[in-house]
């Protein structure tokens, strides 16, 4: 052998030798030498293992055909069988079944590990339709009340005419004090501010990518309302929270992951067209159609 790969190659060689020894005696030595030579043409542990397993299967097929030559090939098969002598039984039924079960386990493990089956498992049975529910822009908010201003209140009372008079000397006359007229402070000019709520913007992640495979298989759907706080640049300023659950913990968790991943792709809320930091809810719809 020009290549040695430690214990794994030992397993492969052992498989081939075992298969060859189980072959009809007249073919056993030939098949072993032939297969070991042809094994050199296979590179890679998996290819060599597959070759060795194939040899085990080939032994079974060869022995079966030589044991029961039928049809037009009967004469040729009988001639060969005569040359080969008695055919040794191959692997027992129990050994074959156990080997097949082992091979199936290996294939399933390899398939899962390499992600071959993930495409099958994650493909939903029906087309999936997912869209956002963006809250409609709210109408212009009513103008806020004017800032409270302290207005000095002066009750309007009739001006008393203070007149003190005595009958006699030293009469004192107090001049009448004219109270100033009450004045109300002028209300400041009222300014209307137009506020628009934000929502998912351009480049926001696709909701389908966050649809949990388990939820798809279980046909779970619903709308999760997520509350996010976004700055003027569309970035999250706090962790998103569930404003209203869809009823499915899986979908709620997926909506939170989606909202978190969308940071930087939100449309900020605006006041008079200027982006401002604000918190607002938006809905994520998970739906299978």
């Amino acid at each position, binding site marked *: *052998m*020009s290549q040695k790969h430690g214990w794994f190659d030992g397993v492969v060689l052992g498989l081939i030798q075992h298969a060859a020894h189980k072959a009809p005696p007249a*073919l056993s030595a*030939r*098949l072993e*030498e*032939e*297969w*070991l*030579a*042809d094994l*050199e*043409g*296979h590179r890679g542990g998996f290819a060599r293992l*597959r*070759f060795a*397993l*194939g*040899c*085990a*299967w*080939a032994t079974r*097929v*060869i022995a079966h*055909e030589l044991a029961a030559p*039928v*049809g*037009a*090939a009967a004469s*040729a*098969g009988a*001639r*060969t069988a005569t040359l080969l002598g008695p055919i040794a039984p191959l692997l027992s039924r129990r050994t074959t079944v156990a080997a097949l079960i082992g091979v199936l386990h290996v294939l399933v493990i390899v398939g899962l590990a390499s992600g071959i089956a993930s495409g099958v498992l994650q493909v939903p049975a029906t087309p999936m339709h997912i869209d956002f529910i963006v809250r409609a822009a709210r109408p212009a908010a009513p103008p806020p009340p004017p800032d409270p201003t302290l207005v000095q209140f002066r009750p309007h009372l009739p001006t008393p005419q203070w007149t003190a008079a005595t009958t006699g000397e030293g009469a004192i006359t107090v001049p009448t004090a004219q109270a100033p007229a009450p004045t109300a402070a002028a209300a400041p000019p009222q300014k209307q501010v137009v506020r628009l709520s934000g929502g998912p913007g351009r480049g926001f992640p696709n909701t389908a990518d966050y649809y949990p495979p388990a939820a798809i298989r279980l046909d779970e759907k619903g709308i999760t309302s997520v509350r996010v706080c976004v700055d003027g640049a569309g970035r999250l300023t706090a962790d998103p929270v569930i404003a209203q659950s869809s009823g499915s913990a899986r979908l709620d968790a997926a909506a939170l992951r989606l909202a978190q991943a969308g940071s930087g792709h939100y449309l900020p809320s605006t006041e008079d067209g200027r982006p401002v930091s604000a918190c607002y809810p938006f809905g994520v719809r998970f739906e299978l159609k």
Partner: protein
Amino acid sequence: MGRWDVRISFQTLKVLEAFLENPTGELSGADVHKSSAIASGTLYPILLRLESAGWLVSRWEAIDPASAGRPRRRLYRLTRNGLARAGEVFASFGRGVTA
């Protein structure tokens, strides 16, 4: 078995096709595997079946395994009968063989 004394399956056709690429050449099992991509579990029974039917003959490669550093290979080649039969097989499928 049909018209021929060998069961003609799709894999058998691929094996014959590998030999018909060079009807006088000799191929080992590994060579046939490379050109036909047939798994060993199917390939070797077919080779033995064709050899038993007289379509192929085989011999050991004439090397010294000790000096070559590898086991000697079993080499197969088409017989005259095998070449004629393979031609009939492919002709029956609408594909002539000129060899």
